[in-house]
Every structure is written in C-alpha cells, then in structure tokens.
C-alpha cells in the first residue's frame, strides 16, 4: 500500500476478484491518500467498537448479524462498490498497524475483526460462502455415497439435538479434521468419528472463521516486526503519530490504575462492599467471609476487582490472609495462595500487571461446582437472584424490571437497573465494568456525605 498526497487515487484492479468480502490475505497494491488513511481507519474503528458493544451485551448470533449489517451501512458505505471494497481493505490494513503493537491490542483487534468477519460471512448467500471457502484454498471435500449413507442417521441426531427438525437437515457435509472447527466441537454441533468432524454447509462459517483468525493472528506478528524494525522510524513524521493516536481513542478505561475516588483501606472494606460493590463482587465477598475460601475463578475475579478499586498489594495480602488462614492455616496460605496474589499485581512470573475483568469477560465465564464467580444475572437461578437483589434493597417492582431484563438475556442492563434502583439515579452509559459500578457508586455516595467514609 502506498500512501500519497496527491488528489487522485489509482484504484487497483485485482480487488474485484473477491467481490464483496475480502479475506485480507495479502496487502494490496494501491495508493491511499493521507486523509483517507486516518478517516477510513476511524470509520472502521467505529464498526469494531459497535461489535465489541454487541458482544458485551451478549447478543445472540442473529442479533449480531443485524447489528453488523447496520454498522457497516452506517460507517463504511460509499457511492460505488469498488470504492467500498477499497475502503474496507485500506481500513483493515491501517488498523493492523495500529493494533499490532502490543499483546493486548492484538487480542482485541483479533477478536473484533474475527467477529466482524463471522457475521458478514453469515449474511452472505450460500453460493458466495462456498466461493469464499474456495478462496482460502481449503482442501475439504463433500461426503458422498456409501460413507454418507452410513452416517446419515447420526447426522440427523446431531441436527435434532440442536432443535432442527428433520426436513431442514442439510444434505451436504464436509469431512474436516476436528482441530479445524473447535467451536463446533465444543458446542457438540458436529458428528465426530475417528478424529474427523462432519461439517454441514450451513456451518461453513466456523471453518472459515478459524482460518481467518489463524491467518490474521500470524499476520499481526509479522506486521509488528515490520513496524518496530522499519516503519515506525521511517514514518515518524507522517504516519506514526496518526497510528499511535488511533489506538487510544476507543477502548475505554481499563481500570488498571485506580483513581482518587477509589482508594480503600482494609478497615473500610466490609462497609464498602455493602455500599458500593456490584452484585457479582458482593456475592464473592460474602462467600469469602462465610467460607473463608474461594476457588480460583473467584479469587481472580474478586482479587483483580479489589486491585482496581485501589487495594494495595500489602493490604490485599493481609486481607486474603486474614480469611484463608481461618480455613487453611497461614503456612498453606503463604505457600499456595500468596504467590498468586503477587502474580496478579505483576510482582511474579512474567510480571504482567493484570487488568480487572470487564463485564463482557465475566458474563462468558463458566462457574462450575463450588464456584461463586461469574455474573449473577446470568448464572443464578431466578429464586436465588431475587433473594440476592432483595438483600441489596430492591423493591418488588424494581426487581420485576430487573428480572425482565434477565429473562431477555440483557445481563448488563439488569445490573444497570439495579444500580439505578439502589442509588436512585440514572446511569445513561450503562454498566460495562464492575469497577465502573464501584466508581460511579462512590461518586454518588461521596457527593451526599463528603466527609464520612462510605
């Protein structure tokens, strides 16, 4: 890609071979105007941020399809098709430069681009989808003849196990090594036999998305190398400042550095847990006090939250030690648990300073036997959730509103409504992060009684 200042731009001719959904396999040969460089990237970033929001609100796949279609029309549409495709490709490659520069940026970009690709693919007709599969050069053949006959009954069982009635059962299946379709295997949406998965035509998306993600992941590593060795220096007066500004603009605070509202000390922690913790953390905190123990998932979720809230490492060690020694004794605490706490604060191992979990991460976690982490709006049964909400002080009307959101799987909206009911105020931005809940809550409480600890 060549970035130029001239008014006219030459359009590459090989773009037309991938009609509407580019795979971004190789950087294209085209010239880009400097203004477009930044503007195209910003528009695409708006789309990716919209995708991120949609995922955080746990939208189902069909809702995500609609969302992606809307976002794309709103931000990426241009007067003619080839212009649109150029913008698509240019913006993707510019954002690669922006997001290749650290592990966290890479991870976010990879997730969002993959999700975007997945839903744009799903919106395509089946013939176009098959063409795209061909583009990737995947060697999978359809299952036919005697082999298909021997599998038919079980293939039907798989389809029916996910609610498909017999007449809808897909009649084309591809035989694919199970490693290529991990998400289909995980959700038991494919028949497995001797290491092969039988993927229906309608499930092609899974196959393609795995390829897409794998390719993009490797590409980001190469891009990073090029950036650090040549591009950054070469472009320091032109593209580099643009690239560096782009990544900080849309990600929102990650609460890895606590601010002035959020310094708590050990003696206040019980009171603060009742007054300002969101339900997920309150539950973990209560269970910790009750059982003097939490399993790994709970320790991570609560531990990082407390770090974001302003609990210093020494206080954290004292806090966890106070509880755990009641159950396991101080020697075991020092040997088995203290290390992990220091690890969370970036004082051990590879010294990553871990960031507290956002709602999106907590909602998709999977608490099992003996666990108390996760999102109560998602993981609690109705009865248990209602009991917990009533302990937080919700009236029965307020509770109904919250439960209504829960039944429609709008877990973060449910938490937002809870917030609004507890503090008697509206929260327009919605709750996206437990630490955000905490900070907003502290703001409100402190404005009411500035001097007293809350």
């Amino acid at each position: 890609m060549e970035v130029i200042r001239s008014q006219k731009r030459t359009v590459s001719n090989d773009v037309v071979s991938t009609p509407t959904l580019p795979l971004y396999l190789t950087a294209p040969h085209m010239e880009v105007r400097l203004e477009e460089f930044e503007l195209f990237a910003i528009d695409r970033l708006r789309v990716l941020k919209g995708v991120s929001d949609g995922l955080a609100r746990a939208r189902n796949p069909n809702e995500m399809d609609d969302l992606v279609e809307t976002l794309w029309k709103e931000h990426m549409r241009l007067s003619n098709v080839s212009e649109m495709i150029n913008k698509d490709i240019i913006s993707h490659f510019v954002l690669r430069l922006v997001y290749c520069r650290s592990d966290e940026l890479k991870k976010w970009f990879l997730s969002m681009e993959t999700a975007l690709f997945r839903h744009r693919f799903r919106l395509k007709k089946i013939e176009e989808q098959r063409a795209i599969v061909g583009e990737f050069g995947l060697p999978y053949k359809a299952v036919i003849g005697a082999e298909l006959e021997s599998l038919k009954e079980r293939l039907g069982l798989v389809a029916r196990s996910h609610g498909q009635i017999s007449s809808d059962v897909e009649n084309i299946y591809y035989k694919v090594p199970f490693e290529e379709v991990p998400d289909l295997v995980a959700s038991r949406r494919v028949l497995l036999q001797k290491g092969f998965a039988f993927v229906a035509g309608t499930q092609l998306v899974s196959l393609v998305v795995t390829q897409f993600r794998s390719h993009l992941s490797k590409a980001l590593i190469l891009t990073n190398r090029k950036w650090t060795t040549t591009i950054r220096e070469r472009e320091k007066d032109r593209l580099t400042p643009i690239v560096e500004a782009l990544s900080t603009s849309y990600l929102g605070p990650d609460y890895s550095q606590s601010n002035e509202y959020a310094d708590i000390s050990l003696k206040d922690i019980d009171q603060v847990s009742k007054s300002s913790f969101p339900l997920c953390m309150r539950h973990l905190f209560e269970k910790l006090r009750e059982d003097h123990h939490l399993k790994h998932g709970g320790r991570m979720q609560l531990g990082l939250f407390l770090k974001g809230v302003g609990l210093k490492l020494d206080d954290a060690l004292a806090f966890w030690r106070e509880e755990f020694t009641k159950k396991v004794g101080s020697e075991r605490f020092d040997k088995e648990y203290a290390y992990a706490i220091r690890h969370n604060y970036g004082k051990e191992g590879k010294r990553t300073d871990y960031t507290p979990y956002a709602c999106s991460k907590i909602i998709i976690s999977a608490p099992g036997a003996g666990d108390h982490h996760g999102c109560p709006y998602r993981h609690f049964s109705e009865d248990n959730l209602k009991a917990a909400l009533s302990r937080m002080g919700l009236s029965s009307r307020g509770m109904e509103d919250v439960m209504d959101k829960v039944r429609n799987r709008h877990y973060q909206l449910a938490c937002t409504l809870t917030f609004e009911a507890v503090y008697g105020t509206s929260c327009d931005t919605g709750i996206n992060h437990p630490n955000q809940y905490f900070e907003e809550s502290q703001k409100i409480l402190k404005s009411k009684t500035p001097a007293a600890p809350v």
Partner: protein
Amino acid sequence: MTREEIENNGEDMMIDDSKPKIENDFNVHYLRIYYGNLFPYTDIHKWLSYGHDGKHPGCDEYYFGRREFSFTLENDVYLRYKSFKNASVMEDAIKSNFPYKIDIGAVYSVDPDKRHAYAHSGTNLFTPVERELVFDIDITDYDDVRYCCSGADVCSKCWPLMTVAIKVIDTSLREDFGFKHILWVFSGRRGVHCWVCDAKARRLTNEQRSAVAEYFRVYKGNENNAKKVDLMGHSLHPFLARSYVDFLKNFFEGELQATQSIFSSKEKYEKILGMITDEDIQSDLRGKWENSARSSLSEEATSRLRWEQLKKTLQSKKNKALSLRTCVEEIVFTFTYPRIDLEVSKQMNHLLKAPFCVHPKTGRVCVPIDPNNCDEFDPLAVPTLSQLIEEINSGGLRMDVDDDDSDRSLLGKSIKFFRSSFLEPLLKSCKEEIESSYKTKIAKTKDSFSW
C-alpha cells in the same frame, strides 16, 4: 461392611499378621527407598522421549531436555521449570531431592532452564510447543450426588463413579477423536488422570484443548442453580446417546441405585424433584412418596420403586413440554456422567502429577489403570509405600526390571502393564513418525537442489 473395615481389608490382605504392622503409610525414609529402588526411571524417560532416543538421524536429541518438570519437596517447597538432559540426570535429581510430588509440564521451545535469556524480548520466545492432552477427574466434584462419603474419602460404593467416567471418556477419545495412545492413572487418593499421548494430541493448541474439554462437558452448575444438566433439543447428540445407552443407564439403574439409594429419603428425593421443571409432576410424585414414607421396603427397594414411578409419570406427560422429554436422561446424567476439571485440560502449560508418584496423604502409588478392565480396579487395594517396603524387607525382593517374576511383586504388575499396553505401541508409532517425517524432509531438500 463399614468404610473402616473396607479400608483395613486392603492392608490386611498383604501384610503377614505375625509381623508388627508398619505404622504411617508415608514418610521420607520410605520415600527414599522407593525412589532408590522402585521408581521406573527408564520407562518414564522412554515415554517422555517419544522415540527421540538419538538412534535415528531424524531424532531431536534435545527433545527430552526441553520438558518442564516440577518438584514439591518436604515442607511444601515448590521448584518449577526443572529440566533434565537425559534419564540419568533426572534420576540423580530425584534421588537427591526425594520430592513428595513430581509434576510433568509441557515441552517448551527452549530448555526451561534457559528461559530467562528469552523472556524480555518483545515477543515471547519461551512458549510451550507440545503437551499431552490431559484430563483430571476428582471424586470430590461429585459430592452433591454421593451419599456414602464426602471430601477426600472414597469407598467401594462411590468409586464406580470413576469407573464409569473412564469408560465414557476413553470410548469417546478413541471413537470420536481417533486417539490411540491413552494412559489412565490413579491419582493416589480419590480420582483419575488421563494422558492422551498421540502426536496430534500433543500438538493441540489451547483453543483446541478447550474445545475437547467443552465437548465432554455436560454438568454446568454450582449451588446457585437447581438444574445442572440441561439436555435441550429433540434428541441427544450421538456421543451422549451412546454414553447413555452403553454405560450410564445401566450403571444408574443397577449399581448406583444399589449403593446410593438416591430416592430413599425426603432430603434425597427433593433434590431430584427439583430437576423436574413441571410443578404439577413434582407435587404429584411428592405426594405419592410422602405417603409411602413408612413402607416396610428396604432403602434400595424403595429407591427403585420410586424411580419406576418417576419414569412412568414422565412418560405419560411426555408431550406436555419439550423440557420434559429429556428429563429422565438429565437425571441419569446428573448422577453418573463424568465431571472433568476443565481448567486442567485447557492450557498447555498446566502441570500434572507424574505416574508412579506416591500420594503423600495415602502412601499409595499412582499406578496405571487398564480402561478395558477398570471394573476390577480397587483404589483401596493399590500398593502403599509401607507395603512395598515390607515386601523388600521380607522377601529381599530386589526390583529387577527385566525379571520374569515381576508379576509377583506388587509394583511389577503395574510396570509391566505400563510397558506392554501403553509404552510399546506408543514408541512403535513414534518411531514410524520420526522415520516418515525424516524421509519427507530429505525428499524436500533433494527437490530444492534441482534447478
């Protein structure tokens, strides 16, 4: 028989009553003797070398040296990132440290010993490259469905839960995933570990391991939800259907009912009623069972009767709601389907206890289990450290690894099984693979010379 008697029986069978019984199944002195004479160093080394023994030009002579081990010493001192160049270096390290526990980690891109040299460059060059696909099943995860024991205890009544878990998972690993080189090991106290050692398995990414673990996952829950198994849809996935028909149904209606009597008391049956989503059916059955509370039948017979009643009631109301269709299966799955520890399987860098270690709390050796004969396996009859020491003392039996009499020694049988059923077929397959990838490499370089 009470639990106590069962536990003691295991010991009494082996030890001659005329000699004083050796107290304390586990102590450092015995451990030294064990690691001095009995631990199968060569076999473990051969296994983890996967054919890279230096004899073939295609071998990677540094392969074994890039494997991470960890030692847990007396006083809970924990040493990670240990690695050994070869079998004798490993043997020396174990014999000088006498670890209470040895864990096996992944094979890394560089020698774990030298990882710091690569740690602070921008991209992480010290990464896991190969690692067996592993599973950990622990009976404490079944505490909500076993009534004979809880926590660290295990007995002949609840151990069969592990047996059925092995059968379900082993069958699936072979039939569905096509794996062949699978080692099942007793964890020493209350569970089992599974090591899948095929080359394909060792090269799986974390995402793929996660997918396999999720494929096996059925039980989803904690104390905050009442219904922990949800089998939606109009039919079961063939894997679940096969597990149900071949193993779970018969186990539930046979052995489980006999040992656990899961309907015999109000507290017990309320738990099951909570899994039926229809309130009317719940009250209907509750009414029947409250009235029959004083019947003269035994616990087991009562339990069986109530199960039949439940099935009949659900069968007649089957068309009422989709969720009721799979209710019977859901109940069976809740009580019998394997509950694996997902976190253990998902990450390549997770460490897992080595086979043939000795469990510090029970003194038992972590011996392999034959999945084709797992019904016969009795965790309370596994040789303990003190039994092994006693054997050495009384018979003067030295553990001669090539001895034909190895069958007669307590540990010999296990080692022989490890070799013949697992190690030999594995090594054969590894050699073939090394041979063929070497040939491919040679062919490629030949091509590259042509103009």
